[in-house]
């Protein structure tokens, strides 16, 4: 902590030096200025008359969406089942691809640090950076609308998530156990099965269930671009301005997400 000696000889303890103080203030100034500039950019592209109208619009929206159309739920069970299938099968697909990729990406299990590891890491990063909705957009063009594109989209996005967390778990394993297995004369595959897999199995199960929970949420909107699930009904209801159907769909999504979160929390609690 710097000490400043005042003119009258009194010594004053400060948290930062004068230069440090100035740098901190300058940092804040820069941050605030950046935010203001950015907000101005947004503001230029906003029709403010619509914004001032927002409370009335919100009231109107609420008015039209209450009460929800309860009997519409009968048409929603099948799309909801599809949504859950998209999430589950997509997660399964991701697990099948992500598990080997993670072993190729972890620096202690990769067959080649120069050649294979960068490729595996690139696969993980590319998959993570692209939102599942964008994956769905592309896949719908290729495979046509429907659940299949949705499952692939969820799968492709989840590879990066599961792969990243899993390879970090593999890198953090206890090397002495691996060495002990190797010392018995075990082959490479045996080391993998007896030395590494038991150490990461709980983390792996936890990560998978966690991603499944996220995927349920993601799968609810894939239908907006035609990739199946309840989003198709949501898109149609919004398009026809049937807000009492929209509120029914939202209620169903809320219930499903709460249940899936509960399941995921229970499973993770049981494992860890």
């Amino acid at each position, binding site marked *: 902590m710097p000490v400043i000696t005042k003119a009258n000889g009194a010594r004053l303890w400060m948290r930062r030096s004068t230069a440090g103080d100035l740098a901190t203030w300058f940092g804040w100034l820069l941050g605030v200025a*950046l935010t203001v500039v*950015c907000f101005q950019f947004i503001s230029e592209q*906003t029709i403010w008359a619509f914004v001032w109208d927002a409370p009335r619009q919100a009231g109107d*929206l609420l008015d039209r969406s209450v009460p929800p159309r309860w009997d519409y739920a009968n048409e929603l069970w099948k799309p909801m089942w599809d949504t859950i299938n998209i999430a589950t099968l997509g997660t399964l697909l991701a697990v099948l691809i992500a598990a080997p990729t993670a072993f190729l990406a972890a620096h202690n299990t990769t067959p080649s640090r120069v050649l294979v590891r960068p490729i595996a890491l690139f696969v993980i990063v590319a998959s993570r950076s692209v*939102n599942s*909705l*964008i994956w769905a957009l592309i896949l719908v063009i290729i495979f*046509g609308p429907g659940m*299949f594109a949705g499952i692939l989209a969820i799968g492709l996005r989840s590879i990066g998530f599961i792969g990243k967390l899993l390879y970090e778990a593999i890198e953090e394993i206890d090397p002495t156990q691996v060495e002990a297995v190797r010392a018995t004369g075990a082959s490479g595959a045996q080391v993998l099965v007896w030395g590494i897999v038991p150490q990461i199995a709980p983390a792996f199960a936890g990560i998978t269930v966690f991603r499944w929970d996220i995927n349920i949420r993601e799968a609810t909107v894939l239908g907006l671009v035609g990739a199946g699930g309840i989003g198709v009904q949501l898109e149609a209801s919004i398009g026809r301005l049937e807000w009492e159907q929209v509120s029914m769909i939202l209620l169903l999504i*809320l219930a499903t997400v709460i249940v899936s979160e509960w399941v995921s929390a229970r499973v993770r609690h049981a494992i860890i």
Partner: protein
Amino acid sequence: MTTAALSFDARAAARAWRPPPLIESVWLRYTVYLGALLYLVVGLGSVEVNWVRAAEGLERGARFLAAFFPPDFVTHWFDIQEGILESLTMTVVSTVFGVILSVPFALGAARNIAPLPIYLFCRSVIAISRTFQEVIIAILFVAMFGFGPLAGMITLAFATIGFLGKLLAEDIEDIDPSQAEAVRATGASWFQLLAWGIQPQVLPRFIGLTAYRFDINFRESAVLGLVGAGGIGDTLNSSLDRYEFGTSAAILLIIIAIVLACEYASGWIRRAVQ
């Protein structure tokens, strides 16, 4: 050593050590296996794949992949630039607003410093924000505020409240109570308790989470355009609609590059503060 001794010994194999299974109870294990198998059969059965359509699409997929070599940055550069700039500004403003708003919600949602009614209110706001996918919230905000980046910005700020509010509240609940107790014993007011007993304990993680959320907000801002809430997603969507895959490839590469840069920056920030 006779050959008989080397032959397979069933008794020894039965007694050989096996690793303990993940699920200990036998009947639960087999119920889970059976249920998973049953689900797989039913679930896969309900997926309808139009293979004829898929085969036709593969040609389009090949053209899409070919568009990456080389991607077309030039033709619609102005639109791309506009979209990226919009996404970035939305990300910055929404993160700042979201962080500022998430602090009071986090304080309210921490059971050890907030009274029960406030706790329940803050927790339910956080729960609603976390339940719905950003795109759904964006649809509602677009209906209220009109098209454009403002609706997207508000969406992301709202999602940030749920994310940061929950994680920060859990952090506050996990603090070392003896430090807060010591500050309270000096006769500190509630705000002094916050500033000197709680803030120093949670600040490093809070900064780390903020950097992480910035990263997420950018990624999400790339899709909000699909429902008219501004950002690069709109540009991407229209390029895909017009089968201008070169432009789509360029946009995807730019998104990946920015996400990578954000990720490195947030990793660096988190290492610096912890």
